[in-house]
């Protein structure tokens, strides 16, 4: 097996004296969709942000394409083409949709902007309709599309998605998951997905990890975990729409 694109080994992250992650090991290979599921406060978003460099891991190491990135500042990690759609989407509310997308393409100084923006609009036609509108006036689902679109504008090698389904209607969640699947199938984009919506995430993913109290307790293919009685009891029964 080839070396993983992203490897997280023994990472521990603290907020002050509180340990949020205690020895997490995660690997993401090229072309995979890997998801991380877990309850509220399990440390999913912390792991995602630790990969991005804010907060930095206190112990353990994170490497991307064989390069150590544990101690790099956040913007330099982003320059290695790790793009992120962060928790809460974090679009720029007073800037227009198009300007938001421009910001995503600032790494290449808009060199591929025109081509890439067409691709994003093809993926999310709603954004094309709304291109001159301010980001803050979009609906939640459109903001999520914009957040993903903005991340894609950086031509990422790895796309990190933090709870893209949060607070969205099931039909829109389905559309967004389909878009992620399409990106993975057609462009071979590697995706690392953090989700509370375990059912949707596991169905979508090649592999998945289960995070409980800052520790990975289970891992396997999406299908295996879906069939796993423990996972079903903890995350799926009753939680499935």
């Amino acid at each position, binding site marked *: 097996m080839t070396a993983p694109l992203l490897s997280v080994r023994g990472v521990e992250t603290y907020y002050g004296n509180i340990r949020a992650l205690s020895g997490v090991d995660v690997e993401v290979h090229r072309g995979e969709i890997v998801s991380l599921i877990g309850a509220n406060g399990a440390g999913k978003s912390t792991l995602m942000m630790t990969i991005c460099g804010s907060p930095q891991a206190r112990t353990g190491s994170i490497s991307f394409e064989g390069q150590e990135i544990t101690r790099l*500042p956040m*913007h330099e990690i*982003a320059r290695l083409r790790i793009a992120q759609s962060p928790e809460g989407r974090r679009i720029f509310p007073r*800037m227009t949709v198009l300007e938001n997308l421009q*910001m995503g393409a*600032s*790494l290449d100084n*808009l060199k591929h902007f025109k081509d890439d*923006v067409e691709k994003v609009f093809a993926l999310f036609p709603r954004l094309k309709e709304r291109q001159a509108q301010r980001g803050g006036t979009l609906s939640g689902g459109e903001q999520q599309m914009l957040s993903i679109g903005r991340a894609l504008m950086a031509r990422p090698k790895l796309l990190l998605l933090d709870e893209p389904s949060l607070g969205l209607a099931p039909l829109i969640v389905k559309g967004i998951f389909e878009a992620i699947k399409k990106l993975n199938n057609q462009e071979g984009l590697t995706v690392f997905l953090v989700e509370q919506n375990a059912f949707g995430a596991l169905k979508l993913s090649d592999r998945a990890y289960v995070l409980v109290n800052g520790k990975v307790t289970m891992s396997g293919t999406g299908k295996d975990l879906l069939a796993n009685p423990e996972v079903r009891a903890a995350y799926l029964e009753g939680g499935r729409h």
Partner: protein
Amino acid sequence: MANVASTTASAGTEVTARALREAVFTGLITLGLFFLFVGLKTDQNIRNELILTERWGLLATFVAVSMVGRFLIVAYVQPWLAQRKAVKAAAPEIVKGESFFSRNLSKIAIVALVLYPPVIVALVGVQGSLKWVDNFGIQILIYVMLAWGLNIVVGLAGLLDLGYVAFYAVGAYSYALLSSYFGLSFWVLLPVAGILAALWGVILGFPVLRLRGDYLAIVTLAFGEIIRLVLINWTEVTKGTFGVSGIAKATLFGIKFDASKDGFAALFGLPMSSAYYKIFLFYLILGLALLTAFVTIRLRRMPVGRAWEALREDEIACRSLGINTVTTKLTAFATGAMFGGFAGSFFAVRQGFVSPESFVFLESAVILAIVVLGGMGSLTGIAVAAVVMIGGTEILRELTFLKVIFGPAFTPELYRMLIFGLAMVIVMVWKPRGFVGSREPTAFLHERKAISGSFTKEGHG
């Protein structure tokens, strides 16, 4: 038909009656409120005894003004507002094309400003133009430029800076000191002042990189005070509170504005007047202000300007997109400070005298108020706000007729800050986002062809 007419007539008398009633109430309230404050005044006579002065006339004026005001509001302003609202609600949304005037507003404004001095000279003569060009022209333009400079830091990058006057001071003292110690000319020292101010911008920027909002505001406030205190106490160099006087004037391509034989007036065969120098200064500050606007507009379309605006909106998102927030913040501070420095050196050359008294916190507050009132980020709005706030306070000096009402000791200028505060409250109630609250987008996929098409028609038709 007659029925309708009679109802409107009765509605009219009803409104008038209500207005009269409310006016009487308002008068009573005013009387009660000001009876002791205004009607009676305690004074000490020559034997140090407390005596009571009665000011019934002034009290009557207060009551009359409040009654008339209330009557007018209830009888005319409120019905008019209600009617306008109803008309607006009833009328279908008409999509009007932008008129020629609103589309070319900035060009018209620039042309008007360029023509301003000659028109004033033609109207009131060379000597009479002094007041209009200096007090109303230069004074307002200095604040326009300062506010545009601060707008880069506050409006675009979203970094609340309460110590902007520090850079103004750095620019002013850079010119004042370097010119009086080394005899360098204004044109050499203008960029030097800008660079020095920018340097101080970076020096301020470093310690406050991790701060935002209130915390940043407090540190920048302190920074402004530090600069002022250094200027007061470093007496060997800055001459302390005495200030630096006799600062050299600027020259126009080496032509001096004085009474000498090769001075401006003699060279052009004009009678000697200080007004020519003021007009020259007017064009100078106009040029500097337009430079600020031009640079701001260009920067907004460039990566660094976009990064500033994104930084204002969301710092974490910026960093996750690979933007170095450290350099972005420092460039914002440096660019804003540079324009503050330019304005400062202009201030020094205009006054011929600088002292720490010109760079107190109140100046920072006024500049910030202009930026906020204008609508953060909008150049047009800020220019309008500067004209209203600075021009308005200058007009106070002209209101000498008020002495007739309030007595000869009344000096309207003293109410400058009161009016300033009142205007701010009013604007913030009616237009919470400032005069021009909407942000002009900088990116378009397809150029606005429709507008450029009609533009050529109008231009050459």
